[in-house]
């Protein structure tokens, strides 16, 4: 046994009391601060559920066509949508998609500026990197408990937990993409008298865009990976069906909902990847490798 050097009970109590204090005094303010997220998520969910199924299938198939210019992915999209509908999982799938899209959009809005900031300052990078490591490795239940205590069970803590889990790769890849832009190109831009803003928007971001898109791809995948955990605190959706399957020992329910998640993951993964590849060819980075 490790000898007891100090009594850690007061420390634990302090943390717990601190959280209780925050919940008591700040939960109203925090809830108000998170209300834009609630509005975004609810609007998305309403939109997706309110739209006829065939229109959603057609739009997704159209996007898949634009991204790949082949018939395979659009066909897969249509078959997946039919599967979700036939299995009576349509509404759950739309709820899950809304959560994933809301988390991805929020992550993009937050992560890209943070990534830009990291790429420009060594100090920021040194602080942000361990923080991102923490966000990615900390078991999500650890921060689920306090968020649920503050916001109450429901979609908001689920969305926040999903963002915390899904945002880090986008921050990292934005930073990496911006820093790996060919220094010769950056120098040429500087030599012609460009301002830092002109360099960022005119050179760095366009050239880093394939890497940033890879980050967005990672973020969508990680957001989908969170749906089961998110449904434990009231996010609903396909994850909830999986949970019920576990609870009722109904293997079929869990399996079909799980397959639905996989189908969504494949669709969004292929779409974002193909857009990234298109962009890369346009910039000419992948020439000779295709």
């Amino acid at each position, binding site marked *: 046994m490790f000898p007891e050097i100090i009594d850690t009970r007061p420390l634990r109590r302090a943390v717990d009391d601190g959280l209780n204090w925050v919940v008591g005094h700040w939960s109203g303010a925090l809830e108000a601060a998170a209300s834009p997220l609630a509005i975004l998520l609810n609007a998305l969910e309403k939109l997706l559920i309110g739209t006829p199924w065939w229109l959603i299938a057609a739009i997704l198939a159209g996007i898949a066509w634009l991204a790949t210019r082949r018939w395979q992915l659009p066909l897969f999209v249509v078959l997946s949508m039919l599967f979700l509908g036939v299995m009576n999982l349509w509404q759950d799938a739309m709820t899950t998609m809304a959560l994933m899209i809301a988390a991805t959009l929020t992550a993009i809005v937050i992560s890209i500026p943070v990534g830009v900031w990291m790429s420009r300052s060594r100090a920021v990078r040194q602080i942000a990197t361990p923080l991102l490591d923490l966000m990615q490795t900390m078991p999500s239940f650890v921060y689920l408990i306090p968020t649920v205590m503050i916001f109450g069970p429901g979609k908001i803590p689920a969305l926040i937990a999903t963002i915390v889990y899904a945002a880090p790769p986008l921050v990292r890849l934005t930073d990496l993409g911006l820093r790996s832009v060919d220094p010769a190109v950056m120098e040429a*831009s*500087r*030599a*012609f*008298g460009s301002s830092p803003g002109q360099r960022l928007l005119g050179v760095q971001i*366009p*050239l880093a865009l394939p890497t940033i898109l890879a980050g967005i791809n990672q973020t969508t995948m990680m957001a989908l990976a969170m749906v089961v955990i998110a449904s434990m605190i009231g996010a609903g959706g396909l994850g909830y069906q999986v949970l019920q399957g576990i609870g009722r020992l109904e293997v079929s329910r869990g399996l079909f909902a799980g397959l639905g998640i996989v189908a969504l993951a494949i669709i969004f993964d292929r779409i974002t990847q193909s857009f990234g590849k298109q962009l890369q060819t346009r910039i000419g*980075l992948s*020439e000779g490798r295709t």
Partner: protein
Amino acid sequence: MSETQNMDADNDLAISMRGVTKIFGNTPEEALALLRKGMSKTEVQAETGHVVGLDDVSLDIEKGQIFVVMGLSGSGKSTLIRHVNRLIDPTGGEIVVNGIDVLKMTQPELRTFRRTEIAMVFQKFGLLPHRTVLDNVAYGLEVRGVAKKQRLDEAAKWIEIVGLAGYEHSRTRQLSGGQQQRVGLARALAMDTDIILMDEAFSALDPLIRSGMQDQLIQLQKDLNKTILFITHDFDEALKIGNRIAVLKDGSLQQVGKPEDIVLKPANEHIEEFVRDVNKARAIHVRSIMERGVTEPCEQAVSIDARCEDVLPLFADHKWVGVLDADGQQVGRVTARQVIMALAKHTPPPLAA
């Protein structure tokens, strides 16, 4: 160190550097002190871990000439050219461009200076791969804030001049190296600045293409009368295009002068080594060996700027070849004998066995 201290001609100077020193590292002052005590570049590096980029370089570059800085890799030539538009800040010294002290500029002033007074061509081209050729050539003007139509018209004009008409809407990666560097050149020329910096601009190109680009550069300089600071590691290239040449080694200047001066009177062993392998027929002008004075007109004649290699083929059919000044008046003549003697004199004797 250099014979360029003619301060009365200050107004004609495009670029003037005084005692420019650059030391790379965290505490350059310490290394600078050792350098001033007389330590060599290698000793300073071993002692402090600091790299001496430039050591007390003073240069005067007159307007309207091609000034070539020649040096091997690691000689500090790329560092030197980057001081002119302050892509690198010196540790010490003074840099004056078009009469303005570059080091006293604030960041916004420096940006305006780069946008309006000086353009640059890079060894690795530095083109924007996500833009078309047309947009690349217009880039400098775009940064300057020129309206879209005007800058695209201007860019199209220069694309035509460098011989890339028809490629306006290609991506830069689809072009060959030579074509890409033409884009880089057009981008610099489109800025219409008096000074152009060229950092090993032709070093990445195939020999044939390089030679063509050199001819084009000489022609462009004649037509536009720009001041061109050209960096190269190729002595032949320096001799071909340079009005004046500076030789740099380990960050310090070895010799500055006309190409002939350097070939005929190398200042030290290092330069002699270069000169030994050089094509002297290219370096020596006929005017320096011709028989001066008015003689009967010759059937064949060359310009006063011609070099020995230009007259050699003419001797096949003619004993004498005339030399004409800028107005077409014959001011002298040469024979094959004079040329051969000049070349022989400057070729070092074979090593005694």
